[in-house]
């Protein structure tokens, strides 16, 4: 146990947790915006898988990470349009439509992968700051700073983007007209409608932002891991949805949830690598993040209330 509580190990564990949390955070922030507008999307995992494949395949073809991320965004956007059409305009049950999106993404990403790529071949991973082409040299000394270096500077750009999106999402929701509309539409769509706020349009945009972020989250995952495989996400998208509930629809708490999940995972891996958790208990240790998330929610849940119109389709008549 003592070997865990050294500064370098603690810092490294924390740094791992931060990196690990990134795809969860991106997807969960998107889902937060969607749910704030009253739309639950259980298909996040499917969108992530398609985004992950799209990003990966783009990097194979062009070598450009930026294009990979953009393709992930584009795929998210495209699926978002379908999802919005189905749930907002056709009033389909949201939970189930999401499962449909998930299954489609799971199958279709695998199909594309098998047809277009076949063997999982590694790509160049997203570079950390110090390895950025051109400007990397500026950051090199920063990465070497004790504690602060590995925690703050040894990350790729998507990590910073994910964490910057936390205040940005809060700002969007709380300080902009669009965000106000989103909150109104998620809480009392009739009222918003009576003042000329288009419920459908607001939800459409919220869904599109959410699914784009899910696509980006997927692309980030595959570019960060520098690989794609069948079911690469392993349920990250579902956990991201869970984190929105965990975070009580507030970006900051969603971030806390993603970090907690990442930290528990990173810690259990670290403890196993340091033999703090005996080898024979590996599967028991693997349950820890799930169980801790549930326990945390048991303590928090009764105090929060979700958007009143969540999962309720809106129609005027």
């Amino acid at each position, binding site marked *: 146990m003592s070997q865990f509580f050294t500064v370098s190990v603690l810092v490294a564990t924390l740094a791992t947790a931060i990196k690990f949390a990134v795809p969860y955070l991106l997807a969960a922030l998107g889902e937060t915006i969607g749910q704030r507008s009253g739309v639950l999307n259980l298909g996040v995992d499917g969108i992530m898988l398609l985004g992950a494949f799209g990003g990966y395949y783009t990097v194979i073809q062009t070598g450009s990470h930026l294009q990979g991320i953009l393709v992930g965004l584009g795929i998210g956007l495209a699926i978002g349009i379908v999802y919005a059409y189905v749930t907002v305009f056709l009033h389909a049950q949201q939970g189930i439509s999401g499962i449909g999106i998930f299954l489609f993404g799971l199958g279709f990403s695998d199909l594309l992968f098998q047809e277009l790529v*076949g063997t999982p071949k590694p790509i160049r991973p997203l570079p950390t700051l110090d390895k950025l082409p051109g400007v990397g040299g500026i950051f090199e000394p920063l990465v070497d700073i004790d504690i602060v270096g590995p925690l703050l500077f040894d990350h790729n750009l998507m990590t910073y983007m994910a964490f910057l999106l936390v205040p940005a999402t809060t700002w969007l929701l709380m300080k902009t007209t669009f965000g106000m509309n989103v909150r109104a539409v998620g809480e009392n769509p009739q009222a918003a409608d009576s003042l000329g706020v288009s419920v459908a349009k607001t939800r459409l945009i919220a869904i599109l932002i959410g699914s784009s972020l899910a696509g980006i989250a997927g692309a980030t995952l595959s570019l960060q891991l520098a690989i794609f*495989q069948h079911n690469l996400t392993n349920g990250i998208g579902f956990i991201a949805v869970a984190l929105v509930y965990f975070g009580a629809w507030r970006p900051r708490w969603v971030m806390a949830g993603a970090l907690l999940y990442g930290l528990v995972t990173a810690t259990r891996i670290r403890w196993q690598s340091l033999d703090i958790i005996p080898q024979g208990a590996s599967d028991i240790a693997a349950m820890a993040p799930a169980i801790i998330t549930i326990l945390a929610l048991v303590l928090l849940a009764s105090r929060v209330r979700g958007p009143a119109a969540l999962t309720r389709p809106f129609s005027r008549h």
Partner: protein
Amino acid sequence: MKAKRMLKLFAVLFAMTLTAAACGSGDSTSTTTSECGSDLAVAAGESVTDLSVALVAPSAKDDVAFTQSMVDSLTRLGIEPQITDGTFVVEEAAAAIRGYAEDGIDIIVAHGTQYGGSLAEIAPDFPETSFIWGTSADNQGIANVFAYYPEADQGGYVNGLIAASIAGADGIGVVGPVEAGDAVAYIEGFTLGAEAGGSSTSIVYTGSFSDVALATTTAEAHAANGVAVLTGTSQSAVGAVNVATANDLPWFGTQSNTEAWSSDLTVASQVYHWDVVLADMIEKIEGGTLGGEAMALTLENGGLVMEFNGCYDLDSSVKSDAEAAIEDIIAGEIATK
């Protein structure tokens, strides 16, 4: 352009195969060293049989791991099987196996331990068909079933021994999937080898064969702990290989050759050459014996081959120590379990 390259490659590989066949003089070799920069595609050998063959396997046919090793092995035997891959759901695999049997395929390779139960039901219904099943050390006593399994601990030991010489006191990080199957055998053999070489291993089982993100995180944890070498197994190991590349750590592979993943950081891979036992089995099948025994892949019979990466500058004394160890394992002087 592409065709030209392929042709060149083919020539090189053909030459290599010839050389290998010549030195082997019938016996298989237990080590090879690739030429640096060569493509790893397996060349089709001369067909050993006219019988029809089908393959049912749980992961993708080009997974650079378990299933690909079988496809490559069949290719070496000049066999182009009908393939149903990605059938990790047993019921689906069973349907496929039965379908091939009904179609009158002569030899059906059921490349997944989990298919054993289904096979026990299907095989007796098709006594004229031969079923080749692995990995298992036991053919369930069925007359038309052959079983095969790798003694993965043997190559694991050799990998461990070499790894220890590189890692020394810094230790070796091992990224395991689920604590089961040939993963455990490999890792335990590896650990013994590493200890024999004066180093130590730190082992983390992620709890999943497929979670690349966890395998990556695990490898990063190892790297941050200061290990000097990494190894790992299962299809999720690709994440760990990437970490090895990013951190410039030597990597040891198993099942298939991982050089394609790791540029020049793969030191050696224990590669499953199922073709050695398959060739035996097919010979027997052509002779009328459709099953009835289990065969192991070992270093001795050439089913396990240590493939050294020509691009990695391995100290020649270490390599000769490894080769000596292989001899000792074959001779039974070193215990790998």
